[in-house]
């Protein structure tokens, strides 16, 4: 039997069992009356109701930025505030020097980053996906989520996923207006940009493990350092 035939046969068997189990009604008794209702299921996917939004994000834009920074730092990311994108090259050069890292940078192919005046620094800058010997990367992000200091990054021509994981140092440039309250706001922006990308990474601090005696170690397999360059100030606005 071919792979496809075997799979189709298994599918038929699974759905037959599912049909029997679901119509037995036992589940409804066990789960407070949740019942099979395809129309409700379709409606849920269409309406995408949001769950509870933690009250901690009920703040104005400046408050959200403060929360984002606080939360990112709490998970061992570092944050530098910059006034303008022009300051990015020097900030990257300084950061790498400070951490004794090679003066080399792999940059995501995004014009607003690659077009900066890198020549003013001593950095050797290239763009594209990461290779094994790339030591530091610079990427953008879709949003920074204030709730937990989480970055949401989407793959695409301007966002190679390898940049987020292979280099020892991952630097993310984020504009102040990209800081949002919660993950759901990030989903809205990703949906607005087009079809779901191959990869969406939610990144909260650098890589870590607690697998050896529950002692937390940074830099398990992914980046040892996550540095966020937060550019600009919050737009004046009222609490949301």
């Amino acid at each position, binding site marked *: 039997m071919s*792979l496809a035939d075997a*799979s*189709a046969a298994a599918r038929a068997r*699974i759905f037959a069992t*599912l049909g029997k*189990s*679901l119509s*037995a009604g*036992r*589940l409804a008794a066990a*789960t407070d009356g*949740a019942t099979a*209702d*395809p129309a409700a*299921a379709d409606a849920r*996917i269409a309406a*995408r109701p*949001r*769950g*509870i939004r933690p*009250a901690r994000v009920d703040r104005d834009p400046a408050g959200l930025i403060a929360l984002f920074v606080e*939360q990112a730092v*709490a*998970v061992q990311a570092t944050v530098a505030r910059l006034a303008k994108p022009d300051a990015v090259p020097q900030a990257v050069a300084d950061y790498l020097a400070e951490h004794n890292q090679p003066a080399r940078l792999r940059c995501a192919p995004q014009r607003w980053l690659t077009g900066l005046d890198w020549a003013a620094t001593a950095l050797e800058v290239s763009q594209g*996906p990461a290779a094994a010997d790339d030591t530091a990367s610079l990427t953008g992000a879709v949003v920074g989520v204030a709730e*937990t200091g989480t970055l949401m990054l989407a*793959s*695409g021509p301007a966002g190679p*996923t*390898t940049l*987020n994981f292979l280099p020892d140092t991952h630097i993310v440039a984020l504009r102040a207006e990209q800081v949002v309250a*919660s*993950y*759901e706001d990030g*989903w809205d922006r990703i949906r607005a940009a087009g*079809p*779901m*990308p*191959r*990869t*969406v*990474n*939610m990144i*909260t*601090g*650098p*890589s*870590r*493990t*607690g*697998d*050896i*005696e*529950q002692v937390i*170690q940074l*830099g*398990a*397999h*992914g*980046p040892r350092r996550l540095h966020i360059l937060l550019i600009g100030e919050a737009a004046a606005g009222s609490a949301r």
Partner: protein
Amino acid sequence: MQPTSLAFKETARRALDDAQLQRALLNMKPGFQQRRAGTVAKLPEFDALRDQARAIKNHTLANLDHYLTRFEAQVQAAGGHVHWAATAQEATDIVVALCRAAGARTVTKGKSMVAEEIALNDALQAAGFHPLETDLGEYIIQLRDECPSHIIAPALHLTRQQITRTFQEAHTHLPADRPLDEPRQLTDEARAVLRDGFLGADVGITGANFLVAETGSTVIVTNEGNGDLTQTLPKTHIVVSSIEKVVPTLEDTTTILRLLARSATGQEFSAYTTFSTGPRRADDPDGPEAFHVVLVDNGRAALLATEAAEALRCIRCGACMNHCPVYGAVGGHAYGWVVPGPIGAALDPGLIGVETARHLPNASTFCGRCESVCPMRIPLTTIMRHWRTQEHARKLSPGRIRWGLGVWAYVAARPRLYRLCTRLGVAAMAWVGRRRGHLRRWPGAEGWTRYRDLPAPQGGTFVDRWQRGERGAPARETGR
């Protein structure tokens, strides 16, 4: 994986005598319990989120066929392939065939409980592939040829000294006298060794914490980043997931994600939560060229018709075992199957049979701590009680126990007889223990008296004292 749950009593006894294991288990309290408590305290909405998550999963399970169909269609629309497996054997056959078709040699793996369940590594090895576990804990136990003892911390049962020895024996290409005692050094060594594995792999296999019906996305939640390197670098990405992982929308996933890391490790959010939808797009600079999802039933569809159906809400956070006094005493291996602890006791009899797993639902004091922390509000003790009833009804428990329960039921249903028996029993025990205040032995209570004394009863039976109007503790006891 071949279950050894039937030997629970022996394996548990051995675990209690294992000094290394007992030392390793001590890390659980400061590690998992305190971190969870601290993080939950910072989110006042936590309990309300639990209610929402429970409702989301109940609704999804009640419409599982519908949501699975939708998920399948969305994966295909994104350019991926969906394969169905009713049994473990079918699942491993599919993965092996996909690896063959990809011309693979080395296969990297992210942590996946269902892969353990279907014994995927054994199947891959038998077919001539080299599966490489990349989660640090999984890598350690793969080197030691063990199975995981915890669903989120597979090497929880090991001390750093044991891991040092394992690495010294396995990594013979490194200088024998290198310093290798600290977790930092061990982590760095594993990082360096596994990097080559990531870069050379032809196929990457991950599990899934969620399947999103709305988008056809599979979701993994990790801290190390190994799952991401596993699924981004090779040409082929295979996801192995059980069918109950599906949730309706990205928003629903997000609601449950707010509970997962907090319950599991006490983090507010895990370092990496990754949504994968189809293979790389035409203009993507990296990512896998092929994307396969293998959906495994292996008994779950049938479980939906039983009293254990609610166990299918489980998101495998591990909180129930982290807070279980029995798990804390014997560790995960004693349970003898992939999922240990309270959720194992609730789930395993349904998946591997009451006959094989019948000891597990009995390995509980019914203290209820598991339920009090379960983010999905699974009635774990109720489900365990259901399996105990099944064990009794099918006459799987020893004759002595069934006979004893029969006698007790007869007596307990006759109040006068009950009072007479308890009065006699209490008087006899009080007389035997009159000098020491405790009993060293008592017929039928050997399980207790082998390890500790049994306090002698004081002042008659409860019913008698209640009828005499006694409401407080006896003077002798309060005096101590």
